[in-house]
């Protein structure tokens, strides 16, 4: 696979290290990290189901059918129906949209804000660093659930408010990780060089430090994805997340699913399986990605 490159001067030629195409990279990832590949497959499956829920779902997730309450899993309703006669499978398929939406937006927003704060903290140092670090300490020590509870009471229980409640506790974690990475990046000669060239502080931070802390940033985004989905389920279960009739996985596990669980055990079983499988996929993938990107763990 080595590429022979003939330089334009025509006098010298050099053999570069084999450059992998995207397909090669994928094959390498699947070979060396089978668990990670399995995780990626689960994520892709979940994305596909969420994207084509309207086509795949056999029934309307909101349509009640009072003739068919608590129907057992059958050929018509694979995962049975709930107390309103709604098809559980269809609700789980639409629920994938909410889980992915909350997972991606909360993790992305929290990590991005955290990364910006972390880079600022590391680059400016001094009083700014001290102040931001204390602020992060406060956010870390503050119980997440109380924060979510407060946000739900102030803004009302809705999916987008859950995103805020989940994103805020992610900020200090991301800030910590990115700050320590940025501290070492900052010491590089090239940062000094752009500084000497007269680049402004925001320019140095965003254009020269930010790109070099991308590896820890990507690692923490993927690591937080799974836990954000889990947090959404827990908050919805407590009645702080999406409100009925939204097909949220956590919500499907709460309230009526519990009171009718003896009569209709499929009501809590399948949404729980969906949550577990989704988070499992994200965690498997995130783990392998960390192994692949973190130089300290490489080759283990």
């Amino acid at each position, binding site marked *: 696979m080595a590429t022979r490159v003939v330089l334009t001067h025509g006098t010298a030629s050099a053999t570069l290290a084999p450059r992998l195409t995207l397909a090669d990279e994928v094959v390498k990832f699947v070979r060396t990290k089978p*668990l990670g590949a399995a995780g990626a497959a689960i994520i892709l499956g979940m994305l596909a189901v969420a994207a084509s829920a309207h086509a795949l779902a056999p029934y309307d997730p909101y349509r009640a059918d009072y003739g068919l309450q608590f129907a057992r899993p059958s050929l018509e309703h694979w995962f049975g129906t709930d107390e309103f006669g709604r098809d559980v499978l269809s609700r789980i398929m639409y629920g994938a949209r909410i889980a992915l939406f909350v997972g991606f937006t909360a993790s992305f927003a929290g990590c991005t804000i955290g990364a910006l704060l972390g880079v600022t903290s590391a680059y400016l140092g001094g009083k700014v660093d001290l102040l931001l670090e*204390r*602020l992060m*300490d*406060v956010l*870390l*020590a*503050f*119980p997440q*659930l*109380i*924060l979510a*509870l*407060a946000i739900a*009471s*102030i803004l009302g229980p809705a999916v987008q408010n859950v995103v805020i409640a989940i994103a805020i506790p992610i900020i200090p974690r991301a800030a910590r990780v990115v700050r320590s990475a940025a501290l070492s990046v900052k010491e590089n000669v090239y940062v000094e060089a752009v500084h000497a060239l007269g680049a402004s502080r925001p320019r140095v931070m965003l254009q020269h430090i930010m790109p070099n802390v991308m590896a820890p940033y990507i690692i923490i985004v993927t690591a937080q994805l*799974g836990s954000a989905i*889990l947090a959404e*389920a*827990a908050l919805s*279960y*407590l009645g702080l997340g999406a409100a009925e009739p939204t097909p949220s996985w*956590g919500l499907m*596990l709460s309230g009526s699913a*519990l009171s009718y*669980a*003896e009569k209709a*055990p499929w009501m*809590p*079983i399948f949404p*729980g399986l969906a*949550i*577990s*499988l*989704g*988070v*499992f996929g*994200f*965690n*498997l993938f995130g*783990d392998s990605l960390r192994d692949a990107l973190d130089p300290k*763990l490489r080759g*283990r």
Partner: protein
Amino acid sequence: MRTYVLKRLLLVVPTLLGVASLVFVIMRVIPGDVALLILGGDAGNVDQKQLVAMRAQLGLDQPLLVQFGTWLWGVLRLDFGTSLWTGQPVTEELLIRLPLSLELALLATLVSVLIAIPLGMLAAVRQDTWVDYAVRIVSIGGLAIPSFWIGILCILALVIFFGWGPPLEFTPPWVDPWANLEMMLWPVLTVGYRYSAVTTRMTRSTLLEVLREDYIRTAWAKGLRERAVVIRHALKNAMLPVVTLIGTEFAFLIGGLVVTETVFTLNGIGRFVVDAVAHRDYPVVQALVFLIAFSFVVVNLLVDLTYAWFDPRIRYR
């Protein structure tokens, strides 16, 4: 070392002050009037005079800054005030629920350690074999499966197959250990399994790191048996991060098990905070959030100090 300890201790103060201010502000921003809630009416049908009197009685008619000052001054004297609803001192209300939460946290941590250390060790020693993969799948699974869902399934299985539900009333272990165990067993197992996942992974990765050290190669070269190398030489040196992780988890478990307590209808600290928020019982929420944050900060401080004690390089940073 002394300057380091002093510096770290000083940093605790702004953190706790920040948490105290944040919870105070949040509670005042949340809509809902506790005086109105206690009188049990909507704004229309409650006598205004009565409402004003109730507010004065609860001390809510004073300026916010005064309220904040009074509360902080109380915290400094370890007096957390009285619950707006029951009129009982917050400390007393807390002490009723603490044994349950403490026992749950303690037993769950114990279970997680008993699962995690052997599994993590096994995975590290047999790295990249099917044993390693199995352990990793089980532990990543533990992180992925919502513990409240396992709790629901446990209760469901017990009820359906054995027609038996866990008791609802908490019996302290010193009164009737059997009744206590009956109630605590399932929550302890579900929480323990989940938190073992984190510890298993930590044990595995630190042990892998240690197993590559020179002194381990020396131990092998001396011809020691695998058991001696792994347990006597490697595990001991890999334990520090694991022990500190267990410490932080324990601190979290005391107040952080709201969902588990809800599933198993346990009357612990977690439920207590949530109920207090719903009732707008300001002193209770403030005290509990402060105490949860306090234990978090103290455990983290202890963790950092232990590291500094063992690794002199940290102190001079």
